[in-house]
């Protein structure tokens, strides 16, 4: 058993950024990592995936982009290298190959049990990522035998799939990229499309992330938006980070032969997939929302005198939906060999034995400050800001939350003579 002030769980960008801030505030801590630094990036991503944010936008506390391709997108090996370099540069106290099996409240603090040893601490930072577990719809149980199913965590490349048709369920960042490369591999793709967020990769000559960063959209705070529950559950942007900076959207997928259908609603007793008749509306919603975002961007550009040095505002073609998209797809005819569930992810807190979980198994928190004193979260969608789940967003959150953590430790000691005596 070892005693220290703070245990950070997870050595990805979020845990490391927190480590940097804790060190700066002279708070002794360790960073526990189930594998090696950047484990999820190493073991749970497909081969062609790149970061969806440009290189310049991977700013971690005390560390920025040094290379000569600021507008490029890092491959996974490059991303892993970047995070490893950061861990070394800040000399983060990382304990690799240390899997946390339980966190529980103990003596006014926490006990962190791992497969290596047990730590006693005053505070815990959960930086274990937002994408631990794929969310798979309940209809998955009705998939007929003979059709293979995969999640993006297990998907590596099209070569891993049988020849033949593929149903990709979900049209957010993962779904559209996977659909694009599978269709190009010669396997015909049907893409089931629910609510999604359409954005162009490049607008008026600038990356969409540049616009969102410059105009302050990414800095929007969790306590400033109308409906934070909705904001935290917005699907990931339809983006890919290809070297040619091309936009992948439903129109580009249709152009290479992908068939669009509505949200997968059910698989019936005859093994037929049934799709929602709402495809037209989810596409209309996405087009309208994209145009609202572009409108916000254009207003910002004008207000900030950027119009003269940038191409004029314009709008993109509306999403084309065929007159009567198919509502049924027979999964027993052998035409569909594989289904890929690109239906989102969620964090896994099954090892957290502190009573802060809501009925959906997620930690109740206010901007990353969990309901249990001394417990903090990092790296979740819109945790404190729209950019919270981005590499570029963890620095500001770590600064805020480490300040809260430091104040908590100070108040706690000041208000508790027994604690001072016990620690003495």
């Amino acid at each position, binding site marked *: 058993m070892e005693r220290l002030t703070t245990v950070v769980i997870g050595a990805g960008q979020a845990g490391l950024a927190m480590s940097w801030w804790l060190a700066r505030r002279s708070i002794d801590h360790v960073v526990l990592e189930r594998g090696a630094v950047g484990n999820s990036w190493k073991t749970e991503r497909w081969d062609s995936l790149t970061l969806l944010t440009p290189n310049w936008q991977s700013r971690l506390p005390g560390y920025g982009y040094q290379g000569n391709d600021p507008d490029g997108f890092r491959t996974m090996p490059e991303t892993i290298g970047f995070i490893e370099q950061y861990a070394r540069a800040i000399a983060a106290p990382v304990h690799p190959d240390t899997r946390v099996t339980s966190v529980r409240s103990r003596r006014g603090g926490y006990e962190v049990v791992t497969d290596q040893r047990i730590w006693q601490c005053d505070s815990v930072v959960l930086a274990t990522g937002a994408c631990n577990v794929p969310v798979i719809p309940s209809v998955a149980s009705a998939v007929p035998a003979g059709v293979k199913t995969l999640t993006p965590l297990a998907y590596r490349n099209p070569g891993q799939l049988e020849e033949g048709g593929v149903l990709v369920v979900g049209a957010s960042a993962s779904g559209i990229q996977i659909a694009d490369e599978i269709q190009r591999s010669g396997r015909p793709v049907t893409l089931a499309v629910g609510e999604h967020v359409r954005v162009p990769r490049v607008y008026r000559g600038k990356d969409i992330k540049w616009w969102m960063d410059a105009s302050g959209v990414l800095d929007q705070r969790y306590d400033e938006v109308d409906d934070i529950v909705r904001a935290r559950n917005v699907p990931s942007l339809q983006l890919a980070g290809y070297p040619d900076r091309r936009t992948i959207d439903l129109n580009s997928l249709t152009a290479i032969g992908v068939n669009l259908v509505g949200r997968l*609603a059910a698989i019936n007793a005859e093994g037929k997939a049934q799709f929602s008749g*709402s495809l037209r509306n989810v596409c*209309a*919603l996405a087009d*309208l929302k994209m145009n609202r975002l572009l409108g916000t961007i254009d207003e910002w550009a004008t207000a900030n005198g950027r119009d003269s040095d940038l191409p004029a505002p314009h709008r993109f073609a509306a999403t084309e939906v065929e007159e009567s998209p198919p509502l049924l797809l027979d999964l027993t005819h052998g035409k569909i060999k594989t289904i890929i569930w690109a239906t989102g992810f969620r964090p896994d807190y099954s090892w957290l034995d502190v009573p802060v979980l809501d009925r959906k198994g997620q930690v109740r928190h206010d901007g990353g400050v969990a309901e249990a004193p001394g417990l903090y979260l990092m790296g979740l969608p819109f945790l404190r800001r729209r950019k919270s789940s981005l590499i570029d967003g963890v620095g500001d959150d770590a600064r805020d939350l480490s300040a809260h953590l430091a104040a908590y430790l100070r108040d706690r000691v000041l208000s508790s003579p027994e604690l001072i005596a016990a620690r003495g």
Partner: protein
Amino acid sequence: MAINNPVNNGVNTDALFGAREALTKAPEAAQFKWRASCEWIRGTQSRSTVDSFYGLGAEQKHKTKFTYDSDHPEVFASEDAAATPVEIVLAGLAGCLTAGIAAVAQARDVQLRSVKATLEAGMDIRGILGADPDVRNGFDGIKVTYKIDADASDDDIKAIVAQSQKRSAVYDIITNPTNVTVEVK
């Protein structure tokens, strides 16, 4: 929002947002049961009655009992004493979407002056006649066309209509499969 000219579409959105917050905390109270009863009159005519429902943890009653007759038209060799059931489905969809438009517009501070919808649904009746097993009984599609006069841009109006579809129960019932159990007692 202009204070001297408050938007009023006759929808109490404060109550709706209050209900949303309350029901998030008490999901059991959000469980509703909708009911109708129906009795055959003669021929293809029948009369459905809507009276009570269950919700907010208790039995609820409409202010009055509502009845809806249905029949088939003369071209089906019926008496045409009332609308056909499929037309009542269209009326249900229109009623649901239009209520949603009023509510969403209210929440977005958009004053509506007029909202009119026309609905048309195609159907190949060889399905219901059993004349071709490859033809389905139901609609092959529904087209809803709104004409809306409101204090908002075309895109804002389209966004209100899109959001109404996103939150509409009848739209969901029609666009997604639902298990239906019919028993005889």
